[in-house]
């Protein structure tokens, strides 16, 4: 297993989403890719799913968003890979990364911490060319002001 290649793929996914290069982002993903955002609400004592799409669903989401009114402040995703567990038999790796998301206001350029959480990723090792097969964004932050459309 090439840990460096996996780490670089995590970081690449952040850079591509930061740049709103959605095609480039989906090119990192396996055909069976599934993307989910989750959070736990202590208020209702429940785990919640806030977004859940397969690869086609993500493609549609990215296609539709320009038709909507959105905050255009750019996001900066910062990931740190903490743990890489490889399953050679399954030819996959499970990766845990810390995630911080910063938002920079268009007017004036002030930056604020927007969200913290974790990426829980599954990569298909794919003979040395890993692909992202599953990403769960497990958020600690649950308040986003007036919100945002593009996922983390």
């Amino acid at each position, binding site marked *: 297993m090439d840990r460096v290649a996996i780490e670089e793929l995590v970081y690449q996914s952040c850079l591509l989403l930061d740049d709103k290069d959605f095609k480039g982002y989906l090119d990192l993903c396996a055909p069976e890719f599934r993307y989910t955002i989750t959070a736990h609400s202590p208020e*209702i004592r429940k785990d919640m*799913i806030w*977004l859940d799409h397969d690869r086609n669903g993500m493609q549609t989401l990215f296609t539709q968003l320009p038709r909507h009114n959105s905050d255009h402040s750019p996001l900066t995703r910062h990931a740190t890979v903490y743990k890489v567990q490889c399953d050679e038999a399954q030819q996959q790796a499970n990766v845990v990364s810390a995630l911080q998301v910063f938002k920079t206001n268009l007017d004036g350029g002030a930056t604020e911490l927007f969200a913290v959480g974790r990426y829980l990723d599954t990569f298909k090792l794919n003979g040395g060319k890993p692909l992202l097969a599953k990403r769960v964004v497990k958020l600690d932050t649950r*308040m986003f*002001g*007036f*919100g945002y*459309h593009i*996922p983390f």
Partner: protein
Amino acid sequence: MTKNANQWQQLPKFPTSHFVDSRIYTDEQIFHEEREKIFNKCWIIACHESEIPNAYDYRTFRHPGGTNLIVVRGEDMKVRSFYNICPHRGNTLLYDPVGNAKRITCIFHAWSFDTKGNCVDITREKEGFQNRFCKADAGLREVRTEIGFGGFVWVNTDDNACTLKEYIGSALDMLVPCMEEELEVFHYHKAIVNTNYKLWHDTNSEFYHDYMHYFNRVTGMLQPGYFDRKYVGYPNGHASVGSMTIKYDAYEGSKERGVGWPNLSPGGWILIDIFPGMTYNLRTSVLRMDTSIPLGPDKLIIEFRGLGLKRDTPQERMQRIFDHNTIWGPFGRNLHEDLLGVHGQGRAMNRLSDQTWVIHGREENMTIHDEGGMRHFYAEWSRRMGRKAYDPYGEKLISAAA
């Protein structure tokens, strides 16, 4: 044609019921009066009964009137509410949003209370208070509490208020058959927005802003029946909007909602606004509940809940969650747009701004783009506040329709 400073200040050429003075969204004194005359007088939703299912379960609530509350289910399964204030030294009794506590014990000096609000222990009571003060003198302040209209827990800090049933009247009649089964909250999040609570309620009280929502334009506005939906106003400032059939598959990536709702027609959508800041929004497969907690004239917490049926199968629940998230989740298409809208209003109508009037002047026989829902709200607001929304300081000398 643009306006000069004088023209900008001119009264709108509408009846006085059809516009408001924008200072009602920014004035600190008016906000304090709203707390006293509106939020501390009206029935307010604190939580849903499914959030406190077991004996001794509690939920804390930041009441928009200003006093924090505890909502707790007693051993007798009755839900009661109390000020979240220790009567000794005024400390917060319960800090966490939820928990389970047979005894509510203040961390400060360990005074303890049962779930009926009785003080059951004062540490070193006799040594300190002798016979001058005892547990019987130290009960919690109880707040009127009723469960109803979909299993929501309603509170009213006014001991002399009418009953919840009287307060709601017939406003929720359209939804009552849809809420006969037990409901359950599956989604909760909050947003803090720099805007006035009335502006959020306005957004929930008019559909003209569907122009802001691509999703609503293609699934609703372009479909038959959209312009037939009607607003109905009810006593106490509540208002409803009738149903239509939403064509969900007109939005790419969306499809006809396969999971429906008891006693709601397929694709149906009913929205009912409850004065002063709560909205029932039943959209085919999901009930959304918005509750407003103003923190100031220009700062607002909105609580968002998504509800399904308690009897849902896992598959049905997952579908409701998916439907909810597509437009209403924190990353949903419509919610961000709505919040962006009221954020923009808050920014434009800040207290230093020269904004003067907000117009509610559309008349379309009370159909979907009529602004009668907002006019109905401000008539009630004016009645309760003893101020005219179009002339809150009595300075405009308006004697009749401008």
